[in-house]
């Protein structure tokens, strides 16, 4: 066991525990905050996987953006002064059984496949430059498409989200 192993265990525990809170807590606001910490843990996992730029992106977009959006969504669609923002869940047995079956199948796949592992030890190298070069090189088309997608999503969100009265004008 090296320190990085402990870090991995701590992060994995954080992610899984927060995932359980997301799924099983009856208060939706707790689910949202747990989701945030889960994202945070995933960012830590990226650092363990030598993906430093990705970890930063995860923090900025997921923790600073999507989580805040979800929290705003919750606060805008509930009576926000009411602390009892509870919700019910249905189809517990079928859903639980299906999920467990999925988990079993995935575990069987993971441990029975012969992964063609190239390397296990890798020196850490900064990857921002490589990512930038890849975006400007082989991945230029998806990159442009992503930009267009963001623009479309921006305009679409504004048009869908605004008041109907303004639509008529």
């Amino acid at each position: 066991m090296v320190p990085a192993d402990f870090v991995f265990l701590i992060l994995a525990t954080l992610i899984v525990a927060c995932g359980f809170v997301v799924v099983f807590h009856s208060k939706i606001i707790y689910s949202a905050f747990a989701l945030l910490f889960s994202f945070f843990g995933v960012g830590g996992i990226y650092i363990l996987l030598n993906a430093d730029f990705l970890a930063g992106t995860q923090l900025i977009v997921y923790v600073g953006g999507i989580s805040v959006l979800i929290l705003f969504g919750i606060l805008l669609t509930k009576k926000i002064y009411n602390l009892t923002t509870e919700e019910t869940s249905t189809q517990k047995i079928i859903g639980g059984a299906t999920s467990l079956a999925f988990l079993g199948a995935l575990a069987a796949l993971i441990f029975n496949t012969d992964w063609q592992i190239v390397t296990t030890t890798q020196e850490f190298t900064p990857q921002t430059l490589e990512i930038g070069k890849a975006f400007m090189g082989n991945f230029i088309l998806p990159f442009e498409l992503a930009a267009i997608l963001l623009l479309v999503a921006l305009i679409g969100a504004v048009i869908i989200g605004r008041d109907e009265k303004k639509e008529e004008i």
Partner: protein
Amino acid sequence: MDNILVWTMISILVMVGLVSVVGIISIYLERKVSAFMQDRLGPMEVGFGSLANAIIGKKTFKEGRIGLAQSLADGLKLLQKEDIVPKGADVFLFKLAPMIVFGGTFAAFAALPLAEYFVPADINIGLFYILAISSFGVTGILMAGWASNNKWGLLGALRSTAQMVSYEIPIGVSLISIVMICGTLSLKEMVLAQSGWFWNWHLFGAISHNGAIGIVLLPVMFINFLIYFTCSLAETNRAPFDIPEAESELVAGYHTEYTGMRFAIFFLAEYGAIFVGNAIAVTLFLGGWNSGIPMLDEANIPGIAPLIFITKVFVLIFVVMWVRWTLPRLRVDQLMNLCWKYLIPFTLFTFFYVTIYKVFLT
């Protein structure tokens, strides 16, 4: 392994010390500056002598001269205060929120380059890391506002979050211009690129990178610096963008219900965030730990580099306070107008200008 742990602990302790010292000094400075600007004297009585007397229980009153120990005494007072959790509050989130806010600020301190050989964590994406980790505090603010079950707290938190999220755009774009000129995200390398005479600082263009032709960037860099400074005011909820904490509308914003040490932690985090924001400004635009005069830097006086860095940051913090006690608070619509109609177009313009420069003039 032992060595790593020991060194980690030591650097953590040093940074904790720095955070609290920065908080204490900033609070003292704020009180003095606000007092002087309002023709008062500010704290004058609590010197270290009378504080020591008060601690050992002597009641003799020792006259202070400039009240240096005032914020220490305030901290001691806040430590002793009762820790009240409101009846309708969500206790777990209520107690968690200050830790997250403080944690977000505190983690950003780790990447600040105080000197060439004194960067607590020399990350190669330092700037990106600081921007990312500061966004973590936003959720803490939202959590605090929601958990206190208080209308003012919630409104303050919502305003604060909306403001911080929307002002991240001009900050990001204005910093990208600098990153484009330097070609690195590492704060340390950015400072190293600005060594030498003070006209090598990025505030005066990209002379250090590209010789005399970098002078064409001078006006753009000035605009960039102003935009970054304005946005950092908004990011840290300082006046004139202190809408989230507007005393006259929302008692104190998201920390209305907090008392004692939790309240103090919010304040420490706020001043820490101001320090981090201005430290980024110093690192990126004002030459970091370089004094601007090569002879002074080459003299190798021990400990002078962090001192220069911190002095520059505190000069900027003084400007922040100066702005606070001069300008009135903006309305929410004015705030959004400023962001979307003025700051973002100008950052996009400077970004475009720097791109042209980078493509055609280098």
